[in-house]
């Protein structure tokens, strides 16, 4: 049998693990963390202010217009939703496939999912002309006859898809946290922490009954959220695919979007993990270069998938013989927004190719840079799909350009403020690696007796 690389380095004992992982929660925050948190928070507050202005004056503050009815808001929405996918994939699908290496990254990846979906969820609600009437998007009994929603509208499917996804992934994530909360509760020395984590751990006592229920539930939830990984972005892609705008009306969108989502998700995971490794050095032993390498492989694969999608779109446009389709795609590559298109291609298809080389797969700086590129590229992919398809459609008379404003920039950047505020809080308050799951895989890769060797 091949000798496997250990999943946890540094010959830890079980106690070491607990200590390492609980440390950030029990220690006072480091100056670095504080600095990052405050800047993120400032950005978040600015974001809130901008949203306030936007709601008060009208979405006209954004660069959207006729013909480009959707802009930054929807682009960034799809972007964040996409980010969300890696988490569930790692924690649910890899769990079902019994991928032991997932254990140390799952928790954080899933946290990322939850926060990404929270960030994303705001956009569809805020981009409407009259956000205070958004509740009309939900079917509820009313005094209008009653007047229901239009179940044929992909936007409505979106409402359901995203809210379901958000709920399930939050529950899944929380359930995973319960035993660890209990651990922290039990280690807690001061009253306050004891009570809070006590409440959070939902009365976990670590009895065999608890464990068996826990594992059963975890398995079920894993099974439940696995299809969601595919469904959510499929339905998000329907927003475009089901319409009949050339450049949107494409059957390839569902798989294409899912691949892109996983791609961007792992990109973000890498970005965050590298940061975590820097911020909390003790985690280097749990989130090892092997973990990073595996994820880089996934990035490269999905990157190729996405590249294939780009290519086939062009082929189909040509093959369909539909002049409007043909025009739209020529216009993407050569039109006024060509720069956006080629940014997208070079970031998403070219940059991951460096991972063909083991050297780069295992180099933290390289993978960090590439992951940033992937994030940028994936945002531009959504921009290209949304804006360049809209800006030149059927009747040349109403062609136009997107009028990017300061508000667009604020919304885009501000959303990162929201995400990082939440994420940084998470790193401090929650055990960032699943104690309960890492301990069982402690001995993987060590010889059977494990333990110390002289």
């Amino acid at each position, binding site marked *: 049998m091949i000798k496997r690389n250990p999943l946890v380095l540094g010959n830890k004992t079980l106690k070491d693990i607990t200590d390492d992982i609980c440390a950030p929660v029990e220690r006072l925050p480091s100056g670095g963390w504080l600095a990052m948190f405050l800047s993120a928070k400032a950005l978040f507050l600015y974001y809130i202010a901008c949203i306030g202005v936007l709601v008060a004056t009208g979405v006209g503050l954004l660069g959207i217009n006729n013909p480009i009815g959707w802009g930054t808001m929807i682009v960034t929405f799809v972007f964040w939703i996409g980010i969300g996918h890696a988490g569930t994939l790692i924690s649910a699908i890899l769990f079902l496939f019994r991928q032991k290496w997932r254990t140390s990254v799952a928790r954080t990846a899933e946290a990322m999912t939850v926060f990404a979906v929270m960030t994303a969820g705001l956009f569809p609600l805020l981009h409407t002309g009259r956000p205070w009437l958004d509740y009309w998007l939900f079917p509820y009994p009313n005094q*209008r006859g009653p007047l229901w929603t239009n179940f044929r509208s992909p936007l409505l499917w979106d409402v359901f898809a995203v809210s379901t996804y958000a709920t399930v992934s939050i529950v899944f994530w929380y359930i995973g946290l319960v035993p660890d909360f209990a651990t922290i509760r039990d280690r807690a020395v001061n009253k306050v922490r004891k009570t809070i984590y006590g409440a959070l751990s*939902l009365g976990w*006592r670590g009895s065999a009954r608890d464990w068996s229920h826990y594992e059963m539930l975890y398995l079920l939830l894993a099974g439940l959220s696995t299809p969601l990984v595919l469904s959510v972005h499929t339905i998000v892609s329907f927003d475009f695919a089901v319409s009949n705008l050339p450049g949107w009306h494409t059957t390839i969108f569902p798989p294409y979007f899912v691949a892109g989502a996983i791609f961007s998700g792992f990109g973000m995971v890498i970005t965050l993990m590298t940061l975590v490794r820097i911020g909390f050095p003790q985690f280097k032993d749990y989130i090892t270069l092997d973990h990073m390498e595996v994820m880089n492989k996934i990035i490269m694969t999905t990157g190729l998938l996405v590249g294939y999608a780009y290519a086939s779109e062009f082929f189909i446009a040509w093959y369909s013989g539909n002049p409007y389709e043909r025009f739209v795609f020529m216009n993407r590559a050569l039109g006024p927004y060509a720069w956006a298109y080629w940014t997208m291609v070079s970031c998403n298809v070219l940059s991951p190719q460096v991972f063909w080389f083991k050297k780069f797969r295992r180099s933290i700086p390289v993978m960090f840079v590439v992951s940033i590129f992937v994030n940028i590229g994936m945002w531009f992919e959504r921009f290209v799909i949304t804006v360049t398809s809209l800006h030149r459609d059927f009747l040349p008379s109403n062609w136009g350009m997107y009028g990017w404003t300061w508000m667009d920039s604020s919304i885009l950047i501000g959303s990162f403020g929201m995400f990082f505020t939440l994420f940084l809080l998470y790193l401090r308050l929650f055990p960032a690696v699943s104690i309960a799951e890492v301990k069982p895989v402690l001995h993987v890769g060590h010889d059977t007796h494990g333990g110390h060797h002289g």
Partner: protein
Amino acid sequence: MQKVATFGRITTWLSLAILALVLGACSKFRPAIGYNKNYQPDQPIPYDHSLHVGQYGIKCQYCHNQVERSKHSNIPALSTCMNCHLQVKTDSPHITKMREAYEKGESIEWVRVHMLPDHVQFNHSAHVQKGVSCNTCHGPVDTMKTVYQFEDLSMGWCINCHRQPENKAPLNCTTCHH
């Protein structure tokens, strides 16, 4: 340890209960807010419908004379009131007030009772010609000392009638909204 555990369990159940309650309320609860049913403002002149309509049996159309021709049911001009009140009850302070206004060519500012939301177009003449009686929407005006809004005039309430096949009423949105 045990205490903490039970505490945790309690919180769990409590939160679940609250959640269920909220969900239940949201799903079924239909707020009547914004519909001014029973709105009954004071009028500058306490015109008593129960007296004029109920007791003296004056037809609605005598005063609201344009209701058959117009989408609006007009508040009668002072001249209409004066038809009778030049002779009848001329000493009453309210009538005097009205007569003075009338002679000055001024008018009376009545407070509007029945008000539909913006973007809702209601056509009285169309309904009256169909034979819809005034009471169907305005209620027993002939018993009202001061007029109040009898129905909630919500969209669902309108649709209810329009949906009845025997009424053959249009159900297009632009029937009322444009």
